[in-house]
């Protein structure tokens, strides 16, 4: 399990906590401050939605949380593990064991069938569910032998969800998961995410432009200019089926 401990990431605790996270991108002579001192606490088992305009720092935060990127300043903890001081191999190990990713453009491997795309993850995970079960969870078992090019956008994104949940991740990080989908298809994908949260206790973080999706969140972080401008707690999260846009 490398240097990443899961202690404290269990139910009731905090999945992630951060103090003063900052991120500066340097391109040539110009500096872009993507994050300007973010403090946050993400409780385990919640659905969290990050809302905000383009360039407000949501994706940067998500990438740092997922171990794809490093902050320039501040500290980030996953449970009791300080992610900010892990080396590259430990971060990879963290992603492999704990994190499921879902992206706007699915990022499926075109040369692998739906089931094989899921197997990419189950091949290396510690305690995965069978690939077929993951596909069954998103309602795509009958399309297991189809290649991505033979699936609709919504189906591809559901394969991506199946791939992300097959390892039984502690966290699901979703960057605009419905961005390329129509509303009906988008809702099916959100239902799959809610189901993972409900049945596997997975903490789900969703980035979106779409304010409607905030209705299903336990907590909503509103981003502006690299900071969390406001946090809203939703006492009665809605079912995805009740959302529309």
């Amino acid at each position, binding site marked *: 399990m490398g240097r990443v401990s899961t202690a404290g990431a269990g139910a009731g605790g905090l999945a992630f906590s951060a103090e003063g996270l900052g991120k500066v991108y340097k391109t040539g002579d110009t500096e872009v401050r993507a994050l300007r001192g973010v403090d946050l606490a993400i409780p385990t088992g919640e659905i969290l939605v990050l809302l905000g305009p383009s360039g407000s720092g949501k994706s940067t935060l998500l990438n740092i949380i997922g171990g794809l990127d490093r902050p320039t300043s501040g500290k980030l903890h996953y449970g009791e593990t300080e992610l900010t001081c892990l080396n590259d191999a430990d971060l990879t190990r963290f992603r492999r064991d704990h994190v499921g990713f879902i992206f706007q*453009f699915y990022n499926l491997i075109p*040369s692998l069938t739906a089931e094989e795309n899921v197997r*990419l993850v189950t091949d290396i995970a510690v305690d995965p569910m069978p690939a077929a079960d993951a596909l069954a969870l998103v309602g795509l078992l009958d399309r297991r032998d189809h290649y991505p090019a033979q699936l609709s956008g919504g189906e591809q994104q559901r394969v991506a969800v199946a791939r992300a949940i097959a390892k039984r991740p502690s966290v699901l990080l979703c960057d605009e998961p419905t961005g390329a989908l129509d509303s009906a298809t988008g809702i099916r994908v959100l239902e799959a995410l809610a189901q993972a949260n409900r049945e596997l206790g997975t903490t789900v973080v969703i980035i979106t432009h779409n304010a409607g999706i905030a209705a299903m969140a336990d907590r909503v972080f509103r981003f502006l200019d690299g900071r969390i401008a406001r946090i809203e707690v939703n006492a009665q999260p809605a079912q995805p089926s009740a959302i529309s846009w």
Partner: protein
Amino acid sequence: MRSLDLKLVRDLWHLRGQAIAIALVLAAATATFVMSLGVHRSLAETRDAYYARNHFGDIFVGMTRAPRSVVDRIAAIPGVRRAEGGIQQYATLNFPRRVVPVRALLNAVEPDGPNHLNQVTLRQGRLPRASDPGEVVADEAFAKANGLAVGSQIEALIYGRKQNLRIVGIGLAPNFIYALAPGDIIPDDERFGVFWIGRKALEAATDRTEAINSLSLTLERGASGSDVIHALDSILAPFGGSGAYGRKDHLSHAFLDNELMQLSAMTRVIPPVFLLVAVFLVYIVLGRMIRTERTQIGLIKAFGYSDWAIGRHYLKFALAIALLATVMGTAAGIWMGDAMTRLYAQYYRFPFLYYRISLSVIVAAAALSFAAAALGAIGGVRSAVRLTPAVAMSPPPPPAYRAGTVERLGKAAGFSAIGHMIVRHIARWPGRAVITVSGVALSGGLLFATTQFIDSSRTMIDSFFFRAQRQDLTVTFTEPRNASALYALAQVPGVLRVEPTRAVSVKLSNGKRIERTAIESLPANSQLGLRIDRHGNAVALPASGLMLSSQLASKLAVRIGDRVDVEMLGGRRTQRSLPVASIVDEFVGARAYSSEQTLESITRDASPVGAALVRIDPSARDSILTRLRDAPMILGVTEKAAALVKFRAMIDDNMLTMIAFYVAFASAIAVGVVYNSARILFSERAHELATLRVLGYFRSEVGLVLLGELGLLVAASLPIGCFVGYGMGQLMTAMFSSDLFRLPFAPSRASYGWSSVIVLIAAMTTALTVARRVQKLDMVRVLKGRE
């Protein structure tokens, strides 16, 4: 157009690694071409100029003894421009501190006379004066090897008489560009030298006043050599003429010709391999480039650029690579050509030999490079021309993957998802896989074809020096002796065995096919001189009839059971018809053999002994050689071990230098092919590789996707490379064979191994350098956008 050219420059810079890798392969073609054709031209032109300036003869003949007046009769033969008679006499030189006998061939010169054929070029000093019979000119290579200079004195045994020679000049002549002692197959500058001495002095020393024993002549333009030879032979028949021959049978000329033939064979075989690979590399790289720039192409066309402007743009990309290759290849070719020429200058004695850079060779090499690049570009350029803006600007259809047969087998064998990714990608781009496999296979093939020359020469050495020649020394007598000479040799302490051998010059003919050669005879129970076929087996001499080497048999177009006409050259000039009793597949020379009795039936004498094969106790070598050196009846002693050392040194110098060049070039192919395949693979899969990293695959595991595919292709290419190399090696040994040597094709397992290992190292190092890019994969950026 200027902005498109700016794009061209930037593209070239962006793809510089791939462009340079292709340029390396093309440069190898250019370099080989410039080197081999350049060296060929330098050698041929130097030779021709030397022949012309020093009046090298067209026809040569030896005889026992003829009056000088015969020269005028010969000069009157129609077609003869100029004839000159002379004396050639072997002598032994006394170097008191050396145990090894040193031989010299003395040639008569007219010190103050008219322009001579086979004229001597003086390097230092002057020609001998008629007034001083002891003055000689020594050949440059011999003088250098033995530390002789103008003013040095040597004691010589000429025609049984001791005489002091004083070197007054150092020189060289066109009939001794390649100087071999009789019986030797490799020049030995320390043990054999050519000398020029005043005619009167040599006449006096050899009791040949106003007589000659050799003659050269030049022909009028357009005269028939064979008519003149025929006339010459009938005039000289009464004087023991040993059969006239043209340049092609002149030893020095034949060796040089052999070298030129090999160089031109190399020009024909090797550059095409590189050119072919380069065509394919340009094809795949440009193809990929155009696929990735599809949208840009649409946009540029939408702005109003013509189809042809776009086509020309991509063609220029390929031609720019060819330009780079021409510059690199020409520089490398000149450097190598210069090195090769210096090597040749060690074995071939020219007054001047330097690598001459020929503009026409460079232009031809450049034309080949440009043609190959353009040919490779045709496919890509055509697809760029055909793209319509609307189609180009919409995204390309997603690649259709399918599980193939291999895969269904793989499923049964439990392929991982990564395994499927690798196999399906290969199946998706079969053309590119074929190009990668065949490119690497050609690289391995070329390596194999060149390294097997080491096996080839080893086999030849083993066959010639160890299996056939079992003697330690070959002792040549000043004139044919009887059996008592053998007895005397056998009495020398340390001599273990002595066997007589004899060679008689003959003309063999089958209808219009005529070959000059010698028939060699050995005792029936010989243990020291065996005939060995190419499989390494000893072949017994036939009791009657002739045994021909397979080379000779094929030149005469005869098979076992056919009859050949044998005409003895010199002596009694007897003529007989003899059956071909057997054919032996030998590597060296085109010779004939018979039993002693059969040879006697041709010569009609009681087999005098011309030479003896001697086996000695190695510890007595020095004392035996000293005794032989001082024996007046002995003309020369060839020591097998020394010839072997020389032969191996020549192979090391010449062949290993060549092989080193080709190992570098063949590796360039492997590097060029693998680098381009890897870069294309990486650029196509960057998105997928980043996805794998995000999913939690380690860098090493992600690198495996790249290396796995390349590894599979390289692994597939290795056996194919051995197969290709087998064919190429066979072709090249056949092309490198001549009348003088026939190289055996006898590849060892080590050659298969070495060529595979070198390819593997070149391919895998290259693949690893590309796989290191996985380190720099920017997961975040790649995942932001659609592929």
